[in-house]
């Protein structure tokens, strides 16, 4: 059994702690503080930089700093959003790690008194084509998410998957959750002296001890990491959802908080600090699985546990609900006015320390220096040899089979994406998923039956772009997520981000972190899309070094009304139009990296004003009902986006490439550039004039570049007199490469 230690505290932090409490901390206090002051729980490196996000907006009720951001979308309905990762645990035990990640983000949503209604996931692995271990991780991570999400009845509605060698022997497993609350029932932290502190859920055991500090250092994959193996229990997760919602319904809890990283230590200190209260805690009352020391109880990260603050007069009601679901619980103690966490065990006081000290780690100053590799890439950027036009077909097929681009159907088929009767646009049918809310139980107003609202959600990231140019790459991820929700007819109203990097103690890594935050913040401020929450995950390193910087952006959008939800396919004879400008920006493109293994500095840049115009133009078109389908043009570039439209619609097309508005000097740049702010739309011929009238208001490039044709079973690309043809069958075959690689799920 691992010994509780202070391994994650620096000498400086120990000195700071001594000064703060004016004495030597005892061992229980030390382990509480070291759990809470871990990077994972305290944000000690990132906090000052996160302040630059703009966090206010028309829909924001609660911004960052709580367990989930809260959006008020009217009619008495609130949305909650949160994102989490479970990278280290998934790298050790992919099934359990991914599953417990879902459990964790669900409990954050529950903590606001909101009901989880949808999950998203963003996954990253090494090369599944050649690496058995990467395949093993991928298979089990997906199975873990599926088993947990399916079992608790929360649909997994959208996501993304990327493969890159920087994730070899590792993986990034991010999950976001959307919740819904009734405005009159939102649970914000409240509590008064003598209110009771109750822990409910699974028995506490020695599992996951040091999980938070495990996630706060580089990943070794060693024996000692064993202690971080966490066992998912979706059954208890589901019972906690039902019981918590019943408590919220009845109004018998004043505060709810999940027990996550850092266990009781973090949960108690953060809750007490937030409430401005103290806590008197009797550890002997805690329901445990095995006999444990006070230190172990304080920092165990046993899964599926929740903390509730209950007024004494409501305790019986609360107990009746827990008993109904046969959920074990223990009344640990009560709130006090003195601001101290006073912890008792075995009749003795084992810790007495101010909650505000534990909950507020000293900020760690980190150096930031631009990493030399970025200059090196710039110095060595060279264009690959231009392929012959006949070879372009083969390259397009190769790109379609690139696991980062290929269909993710193998993944989302394993997820119940429909439970809840909300998933209007399902994974694989459009760039973002659309959810229906406003079912009778979602509202304050019981009579407003049938008046539904629709929201769109999508999460995006791009480690290849962010590695070479973290500022522009991050901005691009944000732009892409916004484009994706616009494609289904939604206006972005908020985002949550997840910033994943190597060690913040590495000045080069830290520079990329700061750049990335700047990119996201600049985009959000310009677009007036507030950040309502997020998460930072550092120390994503293996023996090979740090992962590529991987910020993720999860955007929530609001669809005008149900009839405006876009879930169409291109039909026979429809015209294909492109909106936006294709530029010679090849850095980090799949074409360069996957086909040519070439790094190049010129990562696509977002022109903020143009980006806004392009997105608004598409939104206006979708909302005027003039389009049959829309697809955003990103990974793999124009060629891949056109091919994907043919595949999705099951019909061929003929395209004249020279009609595409561009500033490229080479055909391969034109085909495969990942320039932002571009959309492909399909429309009926007779609507062309109307479409042009709508577009006249927006200063963006646009051109009809081809037409769909159900008689043809191929995609025909014409360019200055030459033409290539790619059969539908070969495209479909290439696009289903993941299913082929992964075989059966066993």
């Amino acid at each position, binding site marked *: 059994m691992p010994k509780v230690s202070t391994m994650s505290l620096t000498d400086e932090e120990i000195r700071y702690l001594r000064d703060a409490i004016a004495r030597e901390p005892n061992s229980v206090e030390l382990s509480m503080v070291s759990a809470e002051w871990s990077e994972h729980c305290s944000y000690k490196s990132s906090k000052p930089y996160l302040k630059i996000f703009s966090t206010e907006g028309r829909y924001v009720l609660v911004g960052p700093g709580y367990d989930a951001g809260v959006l008020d979308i009217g009619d008495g309905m609130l949305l909650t959003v949160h994102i989490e990762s479970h990278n280290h645990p998934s790298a050790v035990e992919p099934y359990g790690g991914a599953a417990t990640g879902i459990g964790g983000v669900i409990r954050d949503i529950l903590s606001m008194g909101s009901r989880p209604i949808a999950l998203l996931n963003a996954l990253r692995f090494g090369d599944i084509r050649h690496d058995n271990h990467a395949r093993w991780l991928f298979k089990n991570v997906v199975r873990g998410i599926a088993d947990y999400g399916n079992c608790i009845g929360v649909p997994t509605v959208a996501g993304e998957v990327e493969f890159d060698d920087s994730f070899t022997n590792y993986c990034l497993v991010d999950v976001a959750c959307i919740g819904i609350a009734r405005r009159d029932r939102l649970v914000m932290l409240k509590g008064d002296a003598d209110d009771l502190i109750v822990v409910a859920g699974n028995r506490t055991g020695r599992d996951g001890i040091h999980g938070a500090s495990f996630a706060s250092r580089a990943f070794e994959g060693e024996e000692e990491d064993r202690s971080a193996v966490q066992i998912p229990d979706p059954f208890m997760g589901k*019972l906690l959802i039902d019981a918590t919602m019943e408590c919220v319904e009845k109004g018998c809890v004043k505060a709810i908080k999940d027990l996550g990283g850092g266990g009781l230590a973090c949960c108690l200190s953060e809750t007490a600090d937030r409430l401005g209260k103290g806590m008197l805690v009797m550890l002997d009352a805690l329901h445990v699985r095995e006999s444990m020391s006070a230190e172990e109880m304080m920092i165990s990260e046993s899964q599926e546990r929740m903390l509730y603050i209950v007024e004494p007069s409501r305790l019986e009601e609360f107990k009746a609900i827990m008993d109904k679901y046969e959920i074990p619980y223990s009344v640990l103690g009560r709130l006090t006015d003195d601001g101290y966490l006073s912890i008792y065990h075995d009749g003795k006081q084992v810790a007495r320390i101010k909650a505000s000290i534990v909950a507020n780690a000293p900020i760690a100053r980190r150096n930031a220096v631009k990493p030399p590799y970025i200059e090196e890439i710039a110095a060595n950027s060279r264009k690959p040899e231009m392929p012959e036009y006949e070879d372009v077909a083969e390259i397009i097929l190769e790109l379609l089979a690139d696991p980062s681009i290929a269909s993710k159907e193998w993944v989302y*088929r394993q997820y119940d994406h429909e439970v809840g009767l909300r998933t209007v646009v399902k994974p694989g049918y459009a760039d973002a998923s659309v959810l229906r809310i406003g079912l*009778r139980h979602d509202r304050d107003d019981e009579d407003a039956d049938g008046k539904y609202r629709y929201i769109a959600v999508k999460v995006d990231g791009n480690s290849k772009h962010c590695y070479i140019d973290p500022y522009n790459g991050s901005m691009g991820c944000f732009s892409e997520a916004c484009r994706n929700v616009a494609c289904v007819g939604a206006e972005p109203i908020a985002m949550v981000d997840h910033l994943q990097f190597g060690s913040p103690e590495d000045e080069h890594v830290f520079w990329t972190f700061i750049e990335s935050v700047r990119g996201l913040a600049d985009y959000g401020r310009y677009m007036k899309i507030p950040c309502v929450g997020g998460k930072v995950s550092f120390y994503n390193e293996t023996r090979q070094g740090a992962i590529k910087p991987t910020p993720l952006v999860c955007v929530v959008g609001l669809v005008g009304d149900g009839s405006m939800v876009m879930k169409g396919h291109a039909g026979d004879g429809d015209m294909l139009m492109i909106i936006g400008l294709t530029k010679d920006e090849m850095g980090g493109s799949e074409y360069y990296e996957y086909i040519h293994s070439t790094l190049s500095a010129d990562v696509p840049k977002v022109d903020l004003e143009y980006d806004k115009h392009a997105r608004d133009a598409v939104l206006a078109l979708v909302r005027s009902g003039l389009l049959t389908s829309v697809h955003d043009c990103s990974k793999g570039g124009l060629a891949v986006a056109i091919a994907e439209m043919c595949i999705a619609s099951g019909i061929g097309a003929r395209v004249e490439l020279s009609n595409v508005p561009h500033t490229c000097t080479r055909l391969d740049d034109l085909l495969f550039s990942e320039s932002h702010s571009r959309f492909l739309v399909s429309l009926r011929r007779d609507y062309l004039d109307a479409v042009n009238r709508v577009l006249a208001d927006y200063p963006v490039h646009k051109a009809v570049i081809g037409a769909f044709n159900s008689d043809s079973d191929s995609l025909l690309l014409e360019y200055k007199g030459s033409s290539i043809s790619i059969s539908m069958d070969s495209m479909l075959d290439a696009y289903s490469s993941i299913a082929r690689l992964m075989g059966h*799920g066993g």
Partner: protein
Amino acid sequence: MPIRIGIVVFPGSNCDRDIYHILKNIMRVDAEFIWHKRDDLNAYYDAMIIPGGFAYADRLRAGVIAAFSPVMQVVKRLARDGMPVLGICNGFQILVESGLLPGAFMRNDSLTFICRWTRLRLDVDGSRTPFTLLLDKGSIINIPVANQEGKYYVDEDTLREMERNEQIVFRYEDNPNGSLYDIGGVCNEEGNVLGMMPHPERACEIILAPQHMSNSILHGYGDGIMIFRSLISYLYAKGEHHEPYR
């Protein structure tokens, strides 16, 4: 008396609220949740639905633990008295484990959970069960499955007997999970108990159907609505004279 349908809820059921939404907001009939610990019903019900989900997280085997719960002893009695009982997905598995329906379930051939729309064919006369009354034999409905242990199995002898008795109600046109003889739904000998793997409640509202299936003649509704409409028609046809089940 208004029609009232009971929805049996186990720890881990997760389509209970979905069924409730369809009954209450779409079909406009009374619906009530019945918690698994109940061993007597103090109200009358016209029919029972056992919804999908993961009762007891499908531990040991899908449906087996739920089959031993008190409420299932009540459901068994009511089913014997002729009450219409519909088990969907996990509900089907529970009906099989409690012996109300023949057969057994195994893990899908893919070994994974599968969530997708399928085409389901009615293989008996619509009048065979209260839930199919309004459908013609041979008609095909678009409806999604979402299951992990959805592969239906039954031994040869029982199968032949079921065929003779017209108990094989639904067959997949595009078998998603490896079910024996493409079986997607079966009823008991009397026809009042139906189990089906696909989820009709997910196919009631056309906005929830994938785009290529939304050209339904049902004007705003999806094919799944026919299951619920059939039940309601059946209950109305029995009229006010029928003795409610207690």
